[in-house]
């Protein structure tokens, strides 16, 4: 885990004061009326859980031992997820600014808010064309809603510009899957890990971001599986790994090519598999042979023998799995990195068998479903292509419109921001997203969003982005609606409704349906329940790659989830892909040669360090929900910068000092966590915080060429000891912070532990 609470809080004393002033009030008189089987609303693992309901309110959580993926296990986010349902910060009525951008957000009626939105959207579209309105959607919501947003943009508004926050999350994985394997889904269920002999985790902080998956990892190791971890930080799973490759951020493809080099030269590749089931090996082989470990190690900042050891371990395994996540995907060559992983798995024949595969761990709750339901800029439901005439014709017929009226591809989410800046997009409807935390180069994003003529946000909390909105509509949380999501292993599961939305808040699909009606398109959105949307969605995906046609709510309940593709009512789903053929017409996977591309910004004299960002276990994405949960906030109340003891010593920084981190985009001041579990040339800041605490003030907005994912994980930065605390520190309890800093000094941690100088510091 990346943070020790001691950074923020005093050590525990012998008095019983663990939750200073903010324990969750406990009422044991409450009679639990029912347990609602559902799933966690947070990450892609989608753990099963029961919600305890008393007097029409969600009051607690109960482990769901019978759900086959997590068997009752939950991470701290899952355990406290129920606390967002009755949260006092919930938005319970619409808000709007009646007198321009500088007026306050005031209470409005639904009629006033929706009429205003419909009128202004029509005005803006009449004046500047249909594409002047954009829809910016999200992936942490049900498939039904994801499908609805895509349809609403194309049919309700008739705009090309519809995209979603998965652009910042899963789009590199999509690109790699589509280029190499042909189907954009994890190849194996999580339980396949138990059949692996070697597990290679690269760029995935499994312990913190997918905690439940760790239990499978440990079970596999009980069986004797070897673990290889590549990460610039010593993540919780890296601590006991058999081989640990602390590579420099942004050099993944050099490492992967070099491993392939070792496999080729030591004859560990599976020629039979390559010949029978793949195309394009010779070019990839020729490229990989340019990366001997002695050279690649210099670029990655590793020892050549470690790379060789990792490659041998991987190549000699009967069944090996590769797990990747945002670490190698959040880069300007994220797709390439994913393809390089697939190359490695293809070259060793590690596909289509238990325990053999390449799997990207999807970060968002419905990151898998969200990327196939047609809310992407270039996509129609079921992973259909928006520019494919047949797909267009079919979807137009399902939606009851003419094919010519179906808009073509629009801007991906990250290109909407420049389009807003040059006033090409003048209004935006946003749901389930918080770009004021999540997009890189925050200053530019803020300018773009402030410049919109009309900015509408649907959310259940007043997020940092809602603060810039002209109209805020209160939506529902996951426990207030039913619907399906698709977990990171491709398992379609179902949320069940526990309670009704509070106050005047409404279900998101009702809001969208009502808005469509006011735009004169009500006949295309005649839904009376989430099930209606699901049934239409099934039909829309029929025969497509992501085929949901055979999935019903009942089948999900019966089987504890259904793995797509599930093309017929008789089908029980497909847990493991590529057993016989890959997703291309000829059934063969494709190799692609991947030359190494350096990060867009390399350290220089002015910015000598590498900054990388990421998650901590206590927060989910932009923190809009988890920063409102007392337990989670207490564990990690503000961002910090993790840096190595050697570097801290060189810069004159002590543990707990305020440190100003600068990049070419901006600067921020955060407390230092001085540790030896990170590369000496690397800084790490968690990104979950908003306003002046947002790590994305610093990150580089350079985009991956194919799928436009920003390079969150690498940029050049400098760090200096700050003279004084930043303004936001005033909001923290100063006494608490003082105590924390005082008590930290007594710990035998960083200060006392400064060891011999470690090589690896640029310019040292």
């Amino acid at each position, binding site marked *: 885990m990346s943070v020790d609470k001691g950074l923020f809080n005093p050590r525990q004393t012998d008095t019983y004061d663990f939750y200073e002033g903010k324990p969750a009030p406990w009422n044991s008189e409450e009679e639990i009326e029912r347990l609602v089987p559902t799933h966690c609303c947070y990450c892609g693992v989608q753990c099963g859980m029961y919600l305890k309901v008393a007097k029409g309110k969600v009051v607690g959580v109960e482990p769901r031992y019978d759900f086959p993926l997590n068997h009752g296990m939950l991470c701290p986010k899952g355990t406290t997820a129920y606390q967002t349902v009755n949260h006092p910060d919930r938005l319970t009525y619409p808000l709007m600014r009646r007198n321009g951008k500088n007026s306050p957000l005031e209470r409005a009626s639904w009629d006033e808010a929706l009429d205003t939105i419909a009128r202004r959207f029509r005005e803006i579209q009449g004046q500047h064309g249909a594409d002047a309105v954009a829809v910016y959607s999200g992936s942490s919501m049900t498939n039904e809603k994801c499908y609805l947003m895509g349809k609403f943009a194309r049919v309700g508004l008739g705009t090309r510009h519809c995209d979603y926050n998965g652009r910042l999350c899963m789009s590199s994985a999509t690109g790699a899957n589509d280029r190499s394997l042909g189907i954009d889904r994890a190849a194996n269920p999580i339980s396949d890990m138990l059949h692996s002999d070697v597990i290679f985790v690269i760029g995935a902080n499994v312990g913190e971001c997918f905690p439940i998956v760790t239990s499978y990892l440990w079970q596999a190791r009980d069986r004797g599986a070897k673990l290889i971890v590549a990460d610039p930080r010593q993540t919780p799973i890296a601590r006991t790994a058999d081989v640990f490759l602390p590579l420099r951020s942004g050099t993944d493809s050099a490492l992967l090519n070099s491993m392939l080099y070792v496999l080729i030269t030591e004859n560990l590749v599976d020629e039979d598999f390559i010949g029978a089931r793949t195309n394009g090996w010779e070019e990839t082989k020729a490229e990989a042979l340019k990366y001997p470990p002695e050279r690649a190690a210099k670029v990655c900042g590793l020892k050549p023998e470690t790379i060789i050891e990792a490659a041998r371990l991987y190549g000699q395994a009967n069944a090996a799995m590769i797990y990747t996540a945002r670490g190698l995907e959040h880069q300007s060559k994220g797709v390439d990195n994913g393809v390089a992983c697939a190359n490695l798995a293809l070259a060793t024949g590690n596909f289509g068998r238990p325990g053999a595969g390449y799997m990207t761990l999807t970060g968002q709750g419905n990151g898998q479903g969200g990327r196939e339901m047609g809310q992407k800029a*270039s996509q129609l439901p079921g992973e259909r292509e*928006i520019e494919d005439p047949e797909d267009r014709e079919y979807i137009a017929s399902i939606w009851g419109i003419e094919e010519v009226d179906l808009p073509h591809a629009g801007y991906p989410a990250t290109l909407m921001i420049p389009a807003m800046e040059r006033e090409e997009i003048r209004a935006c409807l946003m749901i389930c997203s918080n770009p004021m935390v999540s997009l890189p180069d925050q200053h530019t994003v803020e300018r773009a969003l402030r410049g919109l003529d009309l900015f509408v946000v649907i959310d259940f909390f007043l997020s940092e982005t809602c603060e810039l909105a002209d109209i805020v509509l209160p939506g529902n949380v996951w426990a207030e609606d039913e619907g399906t999501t698709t977990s990171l292993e491709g398992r379609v599961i179902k949320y069940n409704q526990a309670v009704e939305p509070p106050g005047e808040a409404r279900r998101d699909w009702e809001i969208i349906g009502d808005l469509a009606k006011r735009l004169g398109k009500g006949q295309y959105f005649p839904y009376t329940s989430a099930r209606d949307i699901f049934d239409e969605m099934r039909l829309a995906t029929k025969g497509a790659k992501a085929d949901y046609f055979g999935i019903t709510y009942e089948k999900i309940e019966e089987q504890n989830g259904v793995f797509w593709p599930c093309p017929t009512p008789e089908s029980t789903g497909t847990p493991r892909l590529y057993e016989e053929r890959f997703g291309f017409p000829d059934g063969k996977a494709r190799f692609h040669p991947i030359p190494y591309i350096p990060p867009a910004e390399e350290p220089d004299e002015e910015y000598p360090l590498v900054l990388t960002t990421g998650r901590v276990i206590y927060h989910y994405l932009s923190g809009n929900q988890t920063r409102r949960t007392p337990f989670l906030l207490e564990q990690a109340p503000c961002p910090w910068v993790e840096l190595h003891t050697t570097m801290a010593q060189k810069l004159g920084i002590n543990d707990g000092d305020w440190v100003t981190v600068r990049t070419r985009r901006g600067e921020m001041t955060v407390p230092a966590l001085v540790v030896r579990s990170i590369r000496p040339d690397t800084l790490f800041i968690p990104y979950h915080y908003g306003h002046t605490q947002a790590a994305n003030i610093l990150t580089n907005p350079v985009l991956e060429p194919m799928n436009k994912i920003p390079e969150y994980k690498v940029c050049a930065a400098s760090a200096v000891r700050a003279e004084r605390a930043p303004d936001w520190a005033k909001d923290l309890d100063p006494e608490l912070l003082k105590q924390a800093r005082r008590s930290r000094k007594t710990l035998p941690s960083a200060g006392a532990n400064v060891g011999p100088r470690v090589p690896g510091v640029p310019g040292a």
Partner: protein
Amino acid sequence: MAVKRIFLDPSRCIGCRSCVAACRECDTHKGETMIFIDYLNRGNTVASSPTLCMHCEEPLAPCAQVCPAQAILVSPDGVVHQADETRCVNIRNCVYVCPFGVPKFDGPGRYMRKCNLCYDRTSIGLPPMCASVCPTQAIFYGTYEEWIQSGRAQQGAKPVNVFYFGKQRVRTRNYVVMREEQDALDLMALAAEASLGNLSTTPAATADGEVEPWVEADSAGIPERMAPPQPWAPRTPAPLPAPVAPPAPAPAPEREPAPVGPEPVPVP
């Protein structure tokens, strides 16, 4: 019937404090947590370890034995309970005597509180909250035989429930998972070793051993596809005709909207 026990395996712990969050959710503890997660030495490692009541079997519950008010109940199934609020006389004998430092004194409530194995759950056959939620199963709940059956001993792990504090031997209901060669844990010896201040022998952090300096690709002699783009300039998407305005403060020139082509682009 075999006794169900908790097996703590620090080598699996990721320090997520899910157990801490879940402990509060149990009706026995009513919003307070009776389990603790400590980082052993965050400056050097991410290693962490859970601490909870070990429910001593021999000698039976020292905390209960030293209580003059007999406020601490040991139920027939061997579970050592927290102090009875109506009996506790606030002298903290239990806090001082516990070999593991588990009982905590509730100042405002004026009584001792500690883990009682989620008695409302375990007494009806449900696992305690901490073991239920633990995402890595560093906290395992079951009989010794179930622990063996789960296959955890295959790589040489062995549960230990005997601890030495000098000459004092304590056998507990709950186990700590150690290595095969260890039959018991001599905690005083370990504490002495640590307090002798031999911090320089702290094993090097995992990250340290493998880190090397790096150089740029051309000087290392490996090919790279293109020179790094200038900072600030988003890399222009080569195969697509999409307009890309640099998100720089300078006002971008007006441009005609152009469609972004289908993506992802399959390479033939």
